[in-house]
């Protein structure tokens, strides 16, 4: 039994290492390739490790497509969507968790159904026409405003606020605190970690949006970095993968870095919310 356990342990450990390497390999290989000279990229059999740090790929990627400006756009869009979703989600979540009111069930159902009506994909045509009539095409408004509220954030906040003992709310009311004071002074400070986790998930979601920015932005200066990667592939007619991978690293770097730094928060809030990034 002991011997068997040991074999089992070693096999599991080896499998674990192999799977982890396979899962991480695409990112690692892309990182290496972003430093390869064109001749190395096309060597056969393929090379994995570059012979030197060939920064030219990054310069070339930035020359072909204004990735710097696009990074800025992605950051602006992702930050405003995140703040918007948290703001609307906290207020609505608070309404559902701490109040009883007429129409609560209908309001809840109305919100719930939106989980299955992804505006940024299925409704791109009517949403685009709406943007046109508002004069928002090719603006930050179009990239941000439609996505500043979501059922997932509301439910997440509601779920969390409900775990906070109602004695606190009773005590606050007796002390003469208004509902808003209770929210700001008691609930929010107790929800910091959860809000942080939700912020990250929202940020990654917004940063990664693709179809909507693709159709609603016309000029390079309004496009996000995800679209920049596609433009880079189109611009690189010779498919110089070194340059494309350099651009990919520029687009991927910020989210991956944040993810590595605070991965535990991501995982915790993802599981507790069932929120899809």
């Amino acid at each position: 039994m002991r011997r068997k356990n040991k074999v089992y342990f070693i096999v599991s450990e080896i499998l674990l290492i192999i799977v982890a390497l396979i899962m991480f390999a695409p990112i690692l290989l892309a990182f290496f390739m972003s430093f390869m000279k064109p001749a190395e990229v096309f060597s056969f059999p393929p090379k994995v490790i570059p012979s030197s740090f060939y920064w030219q790929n990054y310069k070339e990627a930035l020359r072909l497509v204004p990735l710097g400006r696009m990074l800025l756009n992605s950051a602006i869009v992702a930050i405003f969507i995140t703040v918007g979703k948290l703001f609307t989600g906290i207020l609505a979540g608070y309404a559902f968790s701490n109040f009883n009111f007429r129409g609560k069930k209908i309001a809840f159902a109305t919100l719930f159904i939106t989980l299955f009506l992804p505006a940024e994909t299925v409704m791109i045509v009517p949403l685009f026409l709406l943007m046109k009539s508002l004069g928002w095409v090719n603006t930050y408004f179009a990239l941000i405003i439609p996505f500043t509220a979501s059922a997932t954030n509301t439910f997440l906040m509601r779920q969390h606020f409900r775990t906070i003992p109602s004695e606190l709310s009773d005590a606050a009311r007796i002390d003469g605190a208004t509902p808003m004071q209770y929210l700001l002074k008691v609930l929010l400070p107790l929800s910091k970690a959860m809000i942080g986790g939700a912020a990250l998930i929202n940020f990654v979601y917004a940063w990664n949006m693709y179809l909507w920015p693709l159709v609603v932005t016309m000029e390079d200066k309004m496009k996000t970095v995800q679209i920049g990667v596609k433009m880079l592939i189109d611009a690189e007619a010779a498919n110089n993968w070194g340059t494309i991978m350099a651009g990919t690293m520029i687009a991927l770097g910020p989210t991956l870095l944040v993810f590595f730094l605070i991965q535990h928060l991501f995982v915790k809030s993802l599981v507790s919310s069932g929120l899809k990034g």
Partner: protein
Amino acid sequence: MRKFTPYFLLIPTFVIIIFFIYAPAVSSFKLSFFQESFFGDRSIFVGLDNYIDLFTDSEYYKVLRVTFVYSLSSVGITIFLAFLISQLLIQKLPGTRLFRTLMFSPYAVSPAISATLWAMLFTPTAGLVSYLFQVTFNINVDWLTTVPYAMVALIAATVWKMLPFDLIFYIAALQNIPDSILESSLIDGASGWTRMWKIKFPLVTPITFYLFIMNFTTTMFSSFGIIDIMTRGGPLGSTTTMIYRLYLDGFAFQDNGLAAAESVVMFGVMSVITYLYFRFVEKGVHYQ
């Protein structure tokens, strides 16, 4: 005053969802009954013509078939692999923390970037995966432009991208299985493989169902980025899914009526999913 507080609190959320989710949803229905006139200067009511066009077009049946093949294979493979791999991650083996971080990293990668990475791996001249297939199975094809390999490449990128989400949920679910259940099966002498599929897998059924719905939704919608970058729906339409076709009709061919009818068909698929979600998941899944 307190009586009105909840309504004030709901205003921001409801303004946004009514204007930007419900209004476009309603106008999808409306648009689907209209067609642009020849000069594009006015809309003409055409009744069900758009739907008739759609469902008498054999191409659209192909689109439906491609969508379901792509979605179901991606989702099935992802769930199967995630359940297997999660077994390795709950054993508290040395280095698990680091390996978890590495395995979860595709979660932070966007669909568009996963597609770029996998397009690179499958490229015949420089790609490692393409090379490995060449030496092991003697398959030497241009993956992204050959039927049916383009679909295989697409599924690979999709599975890789979705896997971390499922892993995270399976790990949480498996850690909640009481030790006593697993110990009694150990005494019964069940082998590791049997224990995994006959005892653990049924115990996490609610999570599996939840993941199935979430993954299916992802493949229906967010897969757009993967397809647009890797194959653009080709070759010969073999990777054109419903969402990709909707984009082509709405934005490349500027046929709003037809695209709106396609949105409505997608709503139909989504309402089935919503129904299943309410019927099975809401009752069974407790995330915490």
